[in-house]
């Protein structure tokens, strides 16, 4: 129990602190790397919850692809060090106020939910003794959540098609030079 607790606290801190560091980092590459750290911790949090599949997917998709692309973008547009926080507060005070309001609501919801927590267990809709986590996920995806699953497929298709559409235009206009 104590070991579990320690692991849990470590992982949570490992998600929260890099999250904050990512926001306040002045160097954009460092910020992205902090997000990477966050995602790895998140992945292992999922691992401790008994969901190896999600862990692996999290690492492959987020750590392996998304963050790499972010790094690429940061390299390409060559961001310099910035005083992000100050600029945010100074340039858009209204935005800052709204941000604070939503943080307030978020904290409020947290207090509500922590008050609730003794009454609720993790809502696993399936029984892990009857099959592995992977098996259940597959089963749910292809029966219960079939429609949503297919929709996600369509969504990805549309994104790809749209990107192709724009790039084709760009090529036609600029004579094929990208």
């Amino acid at each position: 129990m104590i070991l579990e607790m320690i692991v849990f606290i470590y992982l949570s801190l490992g998600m929260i602190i890099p999250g904050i560091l990512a926001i306040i980092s002045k160097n954009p590459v460092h910020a992205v790397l902090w997000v990477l750290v966050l995602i790895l911790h998140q992945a292992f949090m999922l691992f401790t919850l008994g969901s190896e599949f999600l862990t692996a997917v999290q690492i492959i998709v987020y750590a392996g692809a998304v963050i790499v692309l972010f790094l690429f973008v940061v390299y390409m547009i060559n961001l310099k060090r910035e005083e992000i926080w100050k600029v945010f507060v100074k340039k858009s005070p209204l935005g800052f106020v709204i941000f604070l309001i939503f943080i307030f609501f978020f904290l409020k919801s947290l207090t509500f939910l922590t008050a609730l927590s003794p009454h609720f267990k993790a809502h696993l809709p399936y029984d892990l003794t009857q099959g592995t986590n992977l098996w259940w996920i597959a089963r749910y995806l292809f029966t219960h959540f079939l429609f949503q699953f297919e929709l996600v497929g369509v969504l990805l298709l549309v994104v790809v098609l749209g990107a192709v559409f724009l790039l084709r235009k760009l090529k036609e206009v600029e004579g094929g030079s990208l």
Partner: protein
Amino acid sequence: MGVALWSEIVILVAVALLLLLVALFHVAYLTYAERKIIARMQQRLGPNRVGPRGLLQPIADVLKLLHKEDIIPYGVDKPIFHLAPLVSLVCAASGLALIPLWDTFVLSNLNVGLLFLLALSSLSAYGVILSGWASNSRYAFLGALRASAQLISYEIAMSLALLSVVLMAGSFNLQDIVKAQMESPFKAYIIPQIIAFFIFMVSAIAETNRVPFDLPEAETELVAGYFVEYSGIRFALFYLAEYFGMVVMCALAVTCFLGGYIGPFNIPGLPFFWFLLKLYVLLFFYIWVRATLPRYRYDQLMGLGWKVLIPLGLLNLFFTALLKLWL
């Protein structure tokens, strides 16, 4: 926390260290084998001064690298510069923990072991990108960009190839995959999945940045690619990571396509014999390719990945699914 847990942890660490040592040994002599084989193929002798037939050459190399000065160039991003080779090595080497060497010998028998291997190989891109960026050098940066683009593209083809294996076996667990091969009529998936095997091997070469896909470290264009600014022990770590990558990829291929540790007959007293045999054959293939083929052009490389391997992989996956459905 009882005694049992502690003893379990101690045993685990001990076995892991042992595995690592053996693997290091393999890696060290892989370099030697490579130099020797290529020399022979090019009608040369290869290293033959240190020890009998140059057998101590790898050890000499290691000692030399350890003694060299660790230069940190001006203007680098120090923490990342230090971190990058470690990331590379760790990601490359820890894949070994998931490979079943024997039906009772696998360090971490995960449900989704194959996915974890893929995850680790995708993480290895970070070593490349970070080293390239942190070095604050044009050559390194270009190399890093190329390497990561290549890694990401070929990763997809590789996953597709592996997925058809998963489809055949019905599991992501590597141990299960080996067992499923044993029970299948072909005994090894290389026969029904010859296309997948081909795709996998090509992408594996690209993933490990080996000739003919060694664009990121092409000496003639980029000096030495992303680790051009590294020297001494850190350079050694990159070097190690590359050869570790080769070993892990070959081991994965053995597990998924060649029936793993299973052989036509058991040889008592030599539990890992068949596994190692298949591994050596594949490693030889690797070196053979390096000796034979010239380097690709960069756009050809990307074209091959996106226009040939991925569609091929998808088709293969599709037909495998049909096969699975109707048989």
